Each structure stands twice: as structure tokens, then as C-alpha cells.
């Protein structure tokens, strides 16, 4: 699954560690999601959507 997390984070000038702190996950989790190595769970996807005040489908895209 592709996502715009890195772009959205950069727009707010947040580091991975800062975003991780806001989402209560580890920096490795943010890095893994940004690089497409980890698809977040639904609860985390909702937390991300709430944090960026966007619908989930504007952040995450199904590659198929």
C-alpha cells in the first residue's frame, strides 16, 4: 500500500521521531510505514488520519 505520510510530515516540518511521538509509536514504525515495509493497522491509520485532519483514503492508496 502506498501512502503520502512522508510528504505530509515534510509539509509540517516534523521529523520522524516527532511524528512517532504524536502517534505514540516508535520512530521505526513511522519509517517502516513511510518506506512501505509496514501497513499500519486500522486503529493507527485512523490516528494518522485524525492527526493530519484528512480522510484515510487521501493518505493511503491501494496499489491494486
Amino acid at each position, binding site marked *: 500500500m502506498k501512502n503520502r505520510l512522508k510528504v505530509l510530515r515534510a509539509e509540517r516540518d516534523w*521529523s520522524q*521521531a*516527532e511524528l*512517532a*511521538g504524536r502517534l*505514540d*509509536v*516508535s*520512530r*521505526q*514504525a513511522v519509517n*517502516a*510505514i513511510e518506506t512501505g*515495509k*509496514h*501497513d*499500519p*493497522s486500522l*486503529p*493507527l491509520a485512523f490516528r494518522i488520519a485524525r492527526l493530519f485532519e484528512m480522510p484515510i483514503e487521501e493518505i493511503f492508496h491501494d496499489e491494486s
Partner: protein
Amino acid sequence: MADNTEPKDPLRYRAYYWLLNLSFVFALIGLAEHITSFIIDKSGFGLEGSANLIAQIIVNIFGYFLPFFLMVAKFMRDDYMEGLWKRTVVVLAYAVAISPMVFVLIAWGCELGLPHDSAAYSIWRKFYEPFITPGQRGDVIVSVAWKDYMWLFVFIFQFLRWRASR
């Protein structure tokens, strides 16, 4: 003065990786001791008396009980670690399902393929005999299987973590 330090991950997440690394090291030590006990026919860590007992207790705590704790400590895992944990458990489930068949294949391979007067065959028999000895205590078999699964959990988790980091 501006604070430029990067915020650190919560302690529980960092601690999970520290403890996992620690249990990995002690699982390797335990595995090495287990293998060498079959090869040189001497168990223990090359220490004498109570020092050997203390070493055994330390290896048991960090090599077996710590992985068990890490297996159930959901509160120490974030979303990413939980994903790794789930993949680890899936591989572990496959391993549990396939291990009896692999064990039978290895047993047949060793019994038919190894010369019965060879050193390799005597090492194999030392490993195999507890499983086929009539009256073998069930708790011994269960504890061996439990230790193996704890090792497997740590090794699989570390492997998946290493692979994901590449």
C-alpha cells in the same frame, strides 16, 4: 536556548528491543550449550559447582523466560512491532505444524543414512533416545519442546526484524 534534541521513543518500546536482543544472545548461548552437550557429552558451561548452576539459572531466565515474557508483553509493542510479532507467530505456527514431519524425516535419514558405528550416529542417538525411551518423563519432553519454541520465537523475530531493516 532551543532544544534541538530528537524526542526518544517511549521507554517501553526501546526496552522491548533491548530485551529481545538480550534474549537472543542468551538463546544462542543456550543453544550452543545444548549442541555441545551432545557432541562432547558434557552439559553445563565449563564452570564448576555453584558457578555452573548460577550460569544455568541466568541462561534459563534470559534465554527462555524472557522470550515468554516478550511473547505476551503486548503493552511493550507498538503497531510496527505488533506486525512483526504477528508474522513471527505465523511462521512459528507453520514450524509447529511441520516439525513432527521434519523430525520423522531426520530420524529416518539418520537411522538409514548414518553408519551405526560412526560418531555422528552416536550423537544422533543421544539426541533421539529420550524421545523413544519407554517411560520417559513427559515433563522432560514438554520442557525440551517449550525451550525449542522459545528459541524459535526469538530467532524468527530477530530474523524478520533484520530483514525488515534492509
